[in-house]
């Protein structure tokens, strides 16, 4: 009698099992950003700086294609982001725009070029999807472009583009070695 009571429990426990593991499902990584495009415009001419890493963390090295920029010029720029790991490719820029107060781009250069913001979120703080780039003298410069999620935009100097006190998590951090001539 005791054994008949225990039998259903045993069967239940055993039936949870099979010898083969379930095949893992390739996730739809809709949050992934694979591509950053900086489109620059000056005097009716367009330039672009592109960074593309299709396979995510690790794997193959990113593909970076950069136009040469002119010295001592002013460019109006905009950033577009894509997830090209999914088909069709998905544009991520609207997600950033919709959460503008939770995102901010930061631009730095190791040379004499400088960046200013040309957009604002609802609180009047910069986002950085639109910006203005003023190049310095002819040189090879590295631009570092960072997108922070949930930064503290009211911390000291953050709204003027200084990343030091921003905090938050980094969604994008890319370095572009640009030739300015």
């Amino acid at each position, binding site marked *: 009698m*005791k054994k008949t009571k225990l039998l259903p*429990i045993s069967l239940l426990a055993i039936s949870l099992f099979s*010898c083969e593991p379930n095949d893992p499902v390739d*996730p739809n990584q809709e*949050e992934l950003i694979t591509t950053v495009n900086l489109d620059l415009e000056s005097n009716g001419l367009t330039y672009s700086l592109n960074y593309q890493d299709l396979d995510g*963390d690790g*794997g193959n090295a990113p593909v970076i294609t950069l136009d040469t920029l002119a010295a001592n010029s002013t460019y109006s720029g905009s950033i577009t982001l894509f997830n090209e790991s999914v088909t069709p490719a998905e544009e991520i820029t609207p*997600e950033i725009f919709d959460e503008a107060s939770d995102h901010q781009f930061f631009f730095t250069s190791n040379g004499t070029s400088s960046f200013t913001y040309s957009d604002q979120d609802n609180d009047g703080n910069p986002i950085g999807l639109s910006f203005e780039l003023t190049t310095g003298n002819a040189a090879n410069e590295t631009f570092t472009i960072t997108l922070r999620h949930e930064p503290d935009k009211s911390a000291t100097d953050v709204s003027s583009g200084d990343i030091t006190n921003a905090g938050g998590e*980094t969604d994008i*951090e890319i370095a572009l070695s640009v030739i300015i001539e």
Partner: protein
Amino acid sequence: MNKLLKILVFTFGWSLSVTAQICYIQLQGYVSDSHDNRPMADVSISISEIGNELWTNAQGKFSFTNLCPGTYHLTIQHVGCPTKRMALELSADTLVKINIEHHENMLHEVDVHDHHEYAMNEHKLGLNAIDNNTQKSLAATLTSAPGVNIISNGADIGIPMVHGLTGNRMTIINNGVLHSGQQWGIDHSPEIDINSAGNLTVVSGAAAIRYPGGHMGGIVLLSPLDIPYDPHLHGKVRSTIESNGRGGTFNVQLFKGLKNLQWKVGTTLKQQGDRQTPEYYLKNTGTKQAHANAEVRKQWGNRVEWQGYFNFFSANFGILRGSHIGNLTDLVSAFQRQIPFYTDSLYSNAIQAPKQSVQHHLIKSTLKKQFNSSTIEWNIAGQRNQRREFDVRRSGRSDIPALSLLQSSLQSDLIFKGNKCIELGYQLLGKNNTNIPETGILPLLPNFVAYSNGIYINYSKRLSKIKLDFGGRYDYTHRNVSMLTNSIPREVVNFNNRFHHISFIGRSTITLTPKWKILGETSFKQRPPEINELYAFGLHQGVSGIEEGNADLNQESGFKSTLQIRGRSGKNLHIDIRGFTHFLNGYIYLQPQTEYRLTIRGAFPVYTYEQCNAKLLGADFILKYSLGQYWDFETNWSYVHGTNLSDQLPLNFMPPLNGQHRIKYEIPEWKNWRNLKVEFEHTYTAKQWNWDTSLDFIAPPDDYNLFNLYLSSTFNKWKLKPQLRIGIENMSNTIYRDYLNRQRYFADALGRNYTLSWIQNF
């Protein structure tokens, strides 16, 4: 006397003599110390039905007269003993013999019993320890045992570490069942509520050959509460409120112990908000938990017993918001902050991402049959563990888990115990671990099914002054693994793992004099590499970097030797000293790589699993001293020194030198209060000097001292006799960081905490 009943009644023995009288019944009793049978004077005995309290005389005797036939409940209270309750059915003059466990935390067992449950190389925490730590995690409760540390991530998430080893090298046995969760993460707390247990035992040798699992270091055993014989429904409420975190814990248990049927049900609820360091709130460090357990034991005659056990654990743990980081730049800037990012000036009890949500179910059935001189036991247990971890994500995806794992496991044991000296067992373990495809992130771990078959034998031989134990174990583990490739296009690849692993143990316990014992133990144990060590791939917030498995890992083998001497001098001084060496061949550890991984999110530290030969040297020292009737002093010290022998470098994340000191003053009564106890506790944790700079981001924190004060007593004026306890933890509000707490990279540890506990037996 019925043998089974004797077990149920636990430390009470009782016998009856019969002469019929009505309302002239006399109840006489004799109270003695369960350790040496000495009579115990000044023990308070009260009968709740008549509201009468008596005290035992110098011979340990007491007597109630003119009782009517019926059932009576006795409450037995004495300084230094946990309060005991027992039920008696009186129909005639009765003589009761009551054994009470005097000074349960003292090392009396030297000259008393030597059964397995409380042997050398083990440390047991009884019901008192659980009562006093109702609000704490399993790991935090165990740290009062010498040689046990806690590796933690904040206040509620912690794994016990025994003699420097934890995670995959640490096994938890809950009511005979190998606890099966996601032990691989150092930020994964075992899914067990201590309030479900009756006692906790830490076994620091590899002695526990009868248990499956990868315990190179030690194991933690949780045993259920003994249900005393009593024909009425009884219960217990334990509740604690805490100032730090402004939370509380509430536990209620109901139990009934009939002659052939005992049952118990219990539930625990816990809520905590943001904890506080001495200077600021730790944002998002709250927890919400709900647990339940049920147990049934049924006997048929004296020889057959069945036990059914169910346990459910559900918890949400907040993770410090400022500890969730993106890339290396974020990590470095988080380290440089005095106060973590996102620190809020206001208290909150909301739990947001990053957080963990865990549900664990355990169901178990045990059937025991006793023959003339042997016992056969059959266990079958199933577990289901669901773990979902949430990161801070974009566009409302913080509500979608970044890690979602479901594990089902099965255990079946067949154990034969013959005549006290031989034990044979067979164990089957099965485990199915699956990623739930809801995360939108490449899984960190592959899916797998693992089976393990094990057999063991234990043999004990008692010579005149020497007790010898030998054990051997063989396991065969087979795993089928299915994982996604990291390259595009993604493909599913399969692996098969097969491991034969063995363990041996030899131990001799020598009784030098009635008061002194010496133990020598050597053991060998193999552990196959775990799934995460072989195949992990991806960003793991628990290590702040990209973790990569190494499919070429071999088995880890450990050879541990322990020498322990335990004894007492005079009546009052107890000493326990233990030293060990532990050589680990193929010790698996996470090695940070010199090059960072560049991704679109910036650079990340990369960790891969590597193997080395390692040596652990350690010692525990315990000294207890009783001064007169009221004062107790205790000091214990532990240290483990780890070396990577392959590279002649220190092993990281070993516990630094640490010591605990307790002074206790307890008086039997003061006005309406019984067992009034004041405890002062000091803990010292040294700075870890033995560390390898290439394996850690920042230097270990400085040494620190913590002071705790507790005041507890039983209020005897009320019939219910509530037990109250007031505590002040970190009295001096010391600012400190703990080396083994991952939160130390980002924030200070907890500041002062006032606690108020109420324990009610009914």
